[in-house]
C-alpha cells in the first residue's frame, strides 16, 4: 500500500506551516479572516464556502485578528508554533502546563 502511494515533488513546507487550524464543519468560507489579516497570509478558497487557504503562513505576525474577528466561534483556532507555546503552573499543586 505504502509502496503504491503516488508522490509529487514539492518544495519544503515552511515553518510555521499552519498558524491557524480551520474547522471545515463550522467555517462557512465568509473570508472575514482573509480581510482582517494585515499581512495577507490567507487566500479565499477557490471553492466557495470552504475555509481559506494559508498561502503565506511564514509571514504570519501572530496578530490574531483572524481568530478574534471570526463571526463563527470555533471555525478558526490559533495554532501557535511549537516553540511558541506558553507555560503556566498551578499555584497550589505546582503542576506545570503548556498550551
Amino acid at each position, binding site marked *: 500500500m505504502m509502496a503504491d502511494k503516488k508522490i509529487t515533488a514539492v518544495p519544503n513546507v515552511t515553518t510555521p506551516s499552519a498558524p491557524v487550524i480551520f474547522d471545515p464543519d463550522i467555517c462557512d468560507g465568509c473570508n472575514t479572516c482573509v480581510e482582517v489579516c494585515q*499581512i495577507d497570509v490567507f487566500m479565499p478558497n477557490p471553492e466557495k464556502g470552504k475555509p481559506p487557504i494559508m498561502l503565506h503562513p511564514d509571514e504570519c505576525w501572530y496578530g490574531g485578528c483572524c481568530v478574534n474577528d471570526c463571526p463563527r466561534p470555533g471555525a478558526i483556532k490559533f495554532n501557535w508554533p511549537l516553540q511558541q507555546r506558553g507555560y*503556566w503552573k498551578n499555584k497550589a499543586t505546582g503542576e506545570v502546563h503548556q498550551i
Partner: protein
Amino acid sequence: MSTWHSYFKEKGQAPDWPYPVRFDQEQEISSDVLVIGGGIAGCWAAISAARQGLNVALVEKGDTVRSGAGGPGCDHWCNAPANPLSNVDPDEWAEHMADRPYCNGIGLQIQCRENFDTLLELEKIGGKVRDTEDEYVGAEGRDDKTKFMISPRYTKVHSYVPWAIKPTTFKSNPEGKLNNVVIRVWGSTFKPALKKECKRLGVKIFDRVMGTGLLTENGVQGGRVIGATGVNNRTGEFMIFKSKATILSTAGAGSIWLISTELGGYSNMMSRAISGDGTVMAWKAGAELTTMEGSGVLRIATGLKHKWYTGAGDASYENVPLVDANGKRLPLPIQGWVDAGAMVPSPEVENKIREGILKGEYALPFYGDFPAMPEVERKATWNLMLGEESTTKIIIKTFNEAGYDPSRDLLQSYKFIEGNSLPQWGEAGYGGGLVVDWNLKTTLDGLYAAGTQMFAPEDHSYAAATGRYAGRKAAAYARQVSESKISREQVDREKARVYAPIKRSSGIEWKELHAGIARVMQYYVSEFKNEALFNMALGALRKIEEESVPLLFALDPHKLLRSLEDLSLLSYAQIIIQAMKARKASSVPLNFRRIDYPTLDPPEWNKFLTIKQENGKVKTGELPMTFWGNMKNQYEAHNKDYSGVYKGK
C-alpha cells in the same frame, strides 16, 4: 485542506491566483486630501479632513479594518491630561513630557491638548472607552461617575526615561495627588469603528494598495507634492492619486537588522508591513528627515522570543506581582499601583536579580502571580489590559481555551531564561522621521505627516491626535490651492521601477534580499560604529543595489509588495547610515556610540541633525533642540479656530 500543500496534494495542482490580475493597468483618482497609510493616524486624518467637507482618499496596504500597529487593539490611552480625572495641567504635562532630549514638542503638545477630545469622538463613533457594563467596579483607578478606568501608568513615577525612576512634583499638582493622565481602554473596538466612520463620511478607501512614490510639481525633487502612485498588492493594478494636499501616515521600518521567517514567524514587535515606505517616498521627493541616526535594541518577539513583549517586569503585566519559582517576590517594578507606574528595573535591580539567580537566591523560571491579586484587579489586568492590548488579545484567548485560570495559575515569565536581543540587532525607527512644523506640514509644500511618520513619535493616542490634527490642517491648505498637473514622465519612471520584479521569474527573491540587507546592517552598523564601518556598509548596500536589485523577482502581486518593501528597507538603511555619518559624536538618548567619537552627548552636538536630498545629493543640516519654541504659545497661535469635540453629524 487549508494549507497550500494539502490543497496541492488533493487537487494535483496549485490554486490559481484568487484575484484578477491587472498588471500595467492604471486607475486615476482625484481627491482634495490624500492620506497614505490607514493605521490609527491615517484613519483619524481621513476622518478629520472629511469632516471639513472635503473629498478624501485613503490608501492602505492591508485592510483598514485591522491594519497598522494599533490594528488589533490598544490598552492605554497615554498622555491624556485634559481628562476630567487628571490632576495635572495639560500644558505642564506636555512640557514635562517634552523635557527629554530628541523628543517632539509639537506632537506632544497636540497629544496633551487634543487626545482627550479625540477619545470622546472615538466613543461617539463606537469605540469603547469606559466601563459601561460595570465589569470592574471596585478596581483601583475606576471612577464610578465617569466610568473611566485610570491606569497606574505615570500616576507618580515616570519611567519613560530609561532608569530615571523618580517622582516629579507639578506646579498644577502641588499636593502630589496621583497624576491620572493615562486611561485604560478597550482598544480592540477602535479600528473597526474608525473604518466605519471613514466609510460613513464618504472617504474613498483603497485597501490592499501600497503607496510607492510621491508625485511632485513638474516631477521635480523638492517641488510641491501633488499626489502619489501606488500598486494594488492583490491585482497588481497601478494607481495614480492626484491631490491638493497629501498626508503621510505610514510607520517606521521594523526589520532592517533582522529577518527570520523560518521558525521565527515575523520575529519582531512590528509586522513586516512596517517597512519605512512613507519615509522613503518623502526622502525621494526631497523632504527633510531628522533623528534618523537613532536606533534601538530590536524587540524580537514571536518565534525567537515569547511574546508578552519582553516578559514579566513589563507593561503588559501591569499590576501583577512577580515571583520566582518558589513563590518569592522579586524586586522587579510591575507598573502597578504599588510602584505607581514604574515599568523598567534600574540596572542595579536587574543586576541584583541576575546575581541572585546565580547564587540560588531566586529560582527560575519566574511567574506572574495572578492568583495573589484581588479579583477585580486580576480581571482588569487579564481581561482588559492584556485582553485589549494589540497582539496579546489572541494570547489570552489561547491560554483561556487551553485551561489556564488566572485565579488559580501562575503565568510563566520568560525574563532571563530567553536572554536579551543581540547587540548586533538594532532597530530603526527610534525617533527617526519627517521634520514637521506647527501645522504638521513637512518641509515640502502640500505634504503633511502624522503619527509614526513624524520624527520622535509616541504611542497610540499620539497617532490618533496628530492624525486628527494633520487632517484638519491639510484640509485648510487644500481649500486654498488648485489641483496641479502631474508629470507623466515621473509616473512612467515610477511604473518602470514598480513593475521591474514581475518581469523576471528567477534571480533573487524578496526574503533573500531582505536577509542580505539585514546582514550588512548586522556586520557594519552593529554596536561597534565608526566612519570606516559606515562606509563599508554604504559600499555593501550599493553593491546590493547595483547587482542584486536588478535580479529581484516577484511571482505574483503579493510577492511584488514584499519586493517593493525590500526596496524601501534598502533606501531606509542607506538614509540611516548617512545620518549616522553626519553625527560626529556619541549619544546615550540616541543609543548611538561611535568608536571614533566616543564622548557622550558633548554639548555642541545637542541638536537635531537633519538630512534630505537636493538634486539627488545628500544634504545635512541642523535644528536646535527645542526648535518648536514655546509649546503653549505656539499651539494657541496656530489653533485659534479649534472647536474641540466634533459636533457635526
